[in-house]
């Protein structure tokens, strides 16, 4: 049956070709496409749309295509797959923890490639960006990405519940001791069964080995900083610091709060528990602000700086960082966007719409932005807290594994039965063994231009 055979073969060919087609070969209108991977939450998307519209109005030659990728494990998995299959985006959100692998694979440009190029960036502009953010954006002292926005952690609290138990709603807890005593006042056992239906500060415990483990570690960090240790690892990257006294004090505080309130393991959504009045205080960041008017409707809420620890007031700085991929067909167009987004007026625009904090201190001195802050006390509290915001030194070897060890220790000391000191000692021992095994040969041959722009290691 030759005819039917031929038809079969034709069909097969069609299937194969059809499966491989459909690649984006540039738009018909002549604009340069720039694919931008991000993990903004849904409440930030309207702000992102307005940012993209403004960019394209100023740069009509570029077609910026934002694409959502779930954050956490999914983002790094997709980046690896994309790099391996030669389909990497032009520019993507990345996290400091991914830099080790991305740099080793030579997947991204060092920023000096663009900063010193024809469409460069001045030293003054670079110096205006919070140094903490540049620390996170760098790997072993070389800048590999640019911050897009800043965040930190503050204390969200319910003023109604403060009033109910006779606490001054305009005086949130100032110290660790007050955090404990306020929590004791706010906890409430309605039916006398020894379980609290309402608690004060919700200790943000999550399964240590789960996808939220690194998130929990990040939330734990301001407490370490308040007790005197900024970093998880020493400068030589040979020893972790979370078995030292400050970290033990911080975890002991969490352990104490957890036990004191008989907090029952982890709830799925601390925010939901806050909304339903089951917790009066929680950690939260400025990215949630656009959601509050709808989410916290009917609640008199406030944002306060985190209570000061035994050594100092402090919070942890976070942010999102943009990296440009070597596989990009239009790296200069991608850089145009990255550079554009760091401009002060764009930062002010972006902050007002998204709730994120500006990456440059100078933006907060713009009168227009100052006036906006007066109308938005929540954002103002976060911006002011940047004065005590501190950065952590990135872990350069086995970062994810080491954070997991710390996450397990936090879980063991709160949900589990170990005390903080023992749990941290075990985690530190395992982590130090990983650091001892680390392959310390330098990453891929560094291109000559990387030497010029480096950031100070803190």
């Amino acid at each position: 049956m030759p005819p039917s055979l031929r038809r079969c073969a034709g069909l097969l060919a069609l299937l194969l070709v059809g499966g491989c087609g459909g690649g984006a070969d540039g738009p018909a209108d002549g604009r340069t496409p720039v694919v931008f991977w991000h993990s903004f939450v849904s409440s930030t998307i309207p702000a992102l749309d307005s940012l993209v519209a403004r960019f394209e109005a100023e740069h009509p030659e570029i077609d910026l295509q934002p694409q959502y990728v779930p954050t956490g494990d999914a983002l790094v998995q997709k980046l690896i797959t994309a790099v391996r299959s030669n389909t990497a985006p032009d520019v993507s959100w990345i996290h400091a923890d991914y830099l080790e692998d991305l740099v080793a694979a030579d997947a991204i440009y060092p920023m000096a490639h663009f900063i010193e190029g024809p469409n460069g960036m001045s030293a003054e502009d670079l110096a205006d960006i919070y140094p903490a953010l540049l620390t996170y954006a760098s790997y072993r002292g070389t800048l590999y990405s640019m911050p897009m926005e800043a965040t930190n952690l503050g204390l969200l609290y319910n003023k109604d519940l403060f009033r109910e138990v006779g606490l001054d709603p305009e005086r949130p807890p100032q110290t660790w001791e007050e955090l404990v005593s306020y929590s004791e006042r706010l906890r409430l056992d309605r039916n006398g069964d020894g379980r609290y239906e309402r608690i004060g500060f919700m200790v943000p415990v999550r399964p240590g080995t789960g996808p939220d483990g690194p998130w929990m570690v990040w939330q734990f960090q301001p407490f370490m900083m308040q007790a005197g240790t900024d970093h998880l690892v020493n400068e030589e990257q040979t020893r972790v610091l979370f078995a030292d006294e400050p970290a033990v004090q911080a975890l002991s505080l969490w352990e104490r709060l957890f036990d004191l309130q008989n907090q029952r393991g982890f709830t799925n959504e601390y925010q939901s528990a806050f909304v339903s009045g089951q917790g009066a205080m929680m950690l939260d960041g400025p990215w949630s602000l656009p959601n509050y008017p709808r989410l916290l409707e009917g609640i008199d809420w406030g944002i306060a700086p985190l209570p000061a620890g035994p050594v100092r007031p402090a919070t942890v700085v976070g942010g999102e960082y943009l990296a440009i991929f070597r596989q990009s067909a239009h790296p200069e167009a991608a850089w145009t966007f990255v550079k554009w987004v760091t401009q002060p007026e764009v930062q002010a625009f972006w902050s007002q719409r998204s709730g994120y904090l500006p990456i440059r201190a100078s933006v907060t001195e713009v009168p227009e932005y100052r006036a906006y802050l007066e109308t938005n006390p929540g954002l103002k509290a976060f911006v002011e807290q940047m004065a005590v915001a501190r950065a952590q030194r990135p872990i350069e070897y086995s970062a994810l594994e080491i954070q997991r060890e710390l996450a397990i220790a936090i879980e063991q000391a709160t949900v589990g039965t170990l005390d903080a000191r023992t749990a941290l000692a075990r985690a530190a021992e395992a982590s130090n063994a990983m650091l001892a095994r680390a392959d310390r040969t330098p990453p891929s041959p560094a291109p000559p231009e990387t030497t010029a722009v480096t950031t100070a290691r803190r």
Partner: protein
Amino acid sequence: MAGVLTGEGQRVSRAAADVVRAEAAAVPVPPAVRRAPGRREGLTAFLFLSPTLLVFVVFVVFPILFSFYLSFQQWNLFADDHAFVGLANYGAVFSDPEFWQVFWNTTVYTVATVPLNMVLALGVAVLLERRVRGKRLLRAAFFTPVVVSSVAAGVIWRWVFDPNLGLANVALTAVGLPAVDWTANAAAAMAALIIVGVWKTFGINMVLFAAGLSAIPSHYYEAAAIDGARSWSQFRHITLPLLAPTTLFVLVLSMIGSFQVFDVVFVLTRGGPLGATKVLVYYLYEHAFKFFDMGYASAVAYLLFAVLFVLTLVQVRAFRNRGAVAV
């Protein structure tokens, strides 16, 4: 007469097989199919199959072989080159105490889930065999969890088992029982996982059992009824032995399925608290797609394969010795 029925299942099943064979012979078969296929027809058939074969080779056969190769390599997925490390990955797996913990957790999950699952599936299948009002609706209802996305189901159950807001604790306290710390208590978290695991998968086994039940000729029951056998002895001496092939199939499948459990764990408990619900495939996932240690993860995968292979052999052998299955 009753002696025949209460005798070994083998004799009965052989009789059943004869019936099936006789029925098959009664169906007229077009002579063309009987003819040995020529080479050209074989080629045609192959071409028709080729899309499926291609997909099968690319997405199933190749990964299986590649992963075996990888289990002797060290590779972080990013780098272009991988290094041969011999049996080092297997050695590292065996010397990791966490591996033994997740192996134990998986065993506990399987030992609890499989019997529960099978008893429930068989029970419901037998009950729905009878004349019940709304039989189809009930069957569909029991089957629904199978087709529901695991992630969606996991999210819903996560809320049900939420220690503060969840329906499970509301229900428990409403009837005067103490609330359970579903997420903080190791045993409770495992129990929650088992409940969801059984809920999610027993529907498919119910359908398999139902198919097995409907294949049992009704005259055995009629004959037994005449002999005065009550429903329990009918079940014990007709249904169970004749259902043995189905039971073996369901057992093997459930065992493999529960050793491979991942999605529900990933969404429901995330391995917590303190790793109490961390199972083998979750452990594998963490090493493969979080730490990108592909060689190590492949070694775990092949150890899991070895365990399942041995377990399946043992089950088939056990059933064959009892004469229930002709393998």
